[in-house]
């Protein structure tokens, strides 16, 4: 029986999302593509830092815990509530940040660079290989009431997953401290895999930084916790497991032991965040920078402009988007590196590719709506042909790929990925937290831009 695979975005031709480390398992059937300098044919898509192994950050063992150097401002703001963003450090359109983690209450710290800044997940997750071993050993484990250490299985939309123990750490975002919060140290040698990682996720384990393209994920999705009440009450949640020796079984977990959006764990500026990334010309750019401002309406630097607010569904985090007259469930996801949406009228780059390759650059628009479809706003965006985008750049505001148009109405059909963030201030309002934008009193989860 002939079998074949198609990704929404074909990996066969896409070294685009494949940074400069080579990987034996990577399909190479695209090597016959004509040599050129576009992002579809380049083997080295970004000039960013290596994503492998140890952190390229500052101290290994002991740096001052009081004054982080990781969050130095790139913009005009001088507040400590700022985390610098660079784009493309590991692969095209990856928003990257550094954070400093410390053994709680000590000055044993390490700055971890090349973390994916992700509005599509909640929690700080770092590959064990990116943490100095002697430091890693000192982070206390999070355990259940029987003293069994917890592991967690984080599953992403593409079915990829990360497994490892939960530890507690002091986490510095800029100069702001999230004290003693649970984080995941991604480590597939810990116990056996948790339930979701064992079964339904299938094969998709991302075991190290080389495979991932980043040293970890700083998940700043508008949830306070990655799972919430579901995992407090449901032993078979599959997301959290308690481990006896190497045997890990799905287990309930207190809300305070779950991975949290580190922003919500700050003592101040904890009601949300604002992501600002510079504008990017249609041809693309490199060395694109930005910043994450912590808090909304709490400081002078996060009382800016008068953005439009779109409430997300408090259960699913979904908003809506109407495109070509059809309504889709939508997400705004900095962890997706392009716009993804269905449009059978825009040619794809090849029969096996999910990238769009229109014959001329397309100026498109879609209508973003809140979860109740009351408030709406038209957003214009541009889609260039992916095979005309130069491989000498690593950031593009006009990169787009397809989502199959056969998805039923309950599925996510429109993803506003990283290009949406360029040239904007995008607000992430954290659930159950109140914030003030102008005179508007708001409660998350919401988006504003």
């Amino acid at each position, binding site marked *: 029986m002939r079998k*074949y695979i198609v990704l929404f975005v074909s990996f066969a031709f896409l070294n685009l999302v494949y940074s400069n480390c080579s990987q034996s398992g990577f399909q190479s059937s695209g090597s016959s593509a004509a040599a050129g300098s576009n992002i579809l044919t380049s083997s080295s898509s970004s000039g960013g830092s290596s994503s492998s192994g140890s952190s390229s950050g500052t101290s290994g063992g002991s740096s001052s815990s009081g004054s982080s150097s990781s969050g130095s401002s790139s913009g005009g703001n001088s507040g400590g509530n700022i985390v610098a963003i660079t784009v493309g450090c590991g692969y095209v359109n990856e928003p990257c940040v550094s954070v400093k983690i410390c053994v709680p209450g000590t000055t044993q710290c390490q700055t971890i660079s090349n973390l994916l800044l992700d509005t599509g997940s909640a929690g700080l997750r770092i590959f064990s290989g990116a943490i100095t071993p002697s430091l890693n050993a000192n982070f206390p484990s999070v355990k259940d009431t029987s003293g069994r250490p917890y592991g967690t299985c984080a599953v992403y939309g593409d079915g990829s997953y990360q497994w490892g123990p939960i530890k507690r750490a002091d986490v510095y975002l800029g100069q702001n401290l999230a004290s003693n919060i649970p984080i995941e140290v991604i480590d597939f040698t810990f116990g056996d895999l948790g339930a979701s990682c064992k079964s339904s996720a299938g094969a998709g384990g991302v075991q190290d930084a080389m495979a991932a393209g980043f040293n970890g994920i700083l998940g700043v999705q508008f949830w306070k916790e990655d799972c919430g009440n579901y995992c407090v009450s449901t032993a078979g949640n599959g997301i959290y497991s308690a481990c006896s020796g190497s045997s890990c079984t799905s287990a309930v977990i207190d809300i305070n032991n779950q991975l949290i959006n580190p922003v919500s764990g700050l003592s101040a500026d904890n009601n949300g965040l604002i992501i600002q990334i510079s504008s990017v010309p249609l041809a693309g750019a490199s060395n694109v920078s930005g910043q994450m401002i912590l808090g909304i309406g709490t400081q002078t630097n996060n009382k800016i402009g008068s953005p439009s607010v779109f409430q997300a569904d408090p259960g699913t985090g979904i908003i809506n988007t109407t495109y070509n007259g059809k309504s889709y469930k939508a997400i705004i*996801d900095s962890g997706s590196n392009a716009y993804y949406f269905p449009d059978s009228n825009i040619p794809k780059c090849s029969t096996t590719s999910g990238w769009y390759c229109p014959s001329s650059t397309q100026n498109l628009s879609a209508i973003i709506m809140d979860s109740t479809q009351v408030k709406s706003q038209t957003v214009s965006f541009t889609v260039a042909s992916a095979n005309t985008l130069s491989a000498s750049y690593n950031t593009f505001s006009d990169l787009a790929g397809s989502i199959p148009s056969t998805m039923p109405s309950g599925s*996510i059909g429109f993803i506003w990925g990283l290009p949406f963030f360029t040239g904007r201030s995008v607000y992430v309002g954290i659930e159950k937290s109140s914030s003030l934008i102008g005179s508007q009193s708001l409660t998350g989860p919401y988006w504003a831009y």
Partner: protein
Amino acid sequence: MKLILLLCVFFSSSAYATLGEHVSQITENEGRFLKVSNKRITQASSAYTVHELTVDGATVKEYADANGVVFAVSWNGMKTPDLSVIFGSYYTEYKVERENIVRVKGVRSVSVRTGSLVVNSGGHMRNLNGFAHIPSLVPAGLDLATLN
């Protein structure tokens, strides 16, 4: 085995089938989910019916043709339900293909296509979803994008 059958009776008075099976065929599949509740069947059109289940952590919808054969299934929830239950006899070929797929950096969705099955999945944390269908079983003239 007895327990599983009892659970089936307890949680549902009608059948739950997997892809390619007839909806009237009582299987053990419900018992393999942690919890099944809120079963709802709607006649969406003359072409198909929707059998909606709330299983542990997700909503599963099965789409059956006029003869009661399940040609598609979707899911949506906190986590991906046990696909071996939903896919039934198609699970093995799915798993083989899924294991061949190399993750694409920066992409949050994936499509798996076997000789007889197409599976698309995606989403973000707390809302993972997917859709699987068997092209050869889709009723003639039915646009999958119109499924509710």
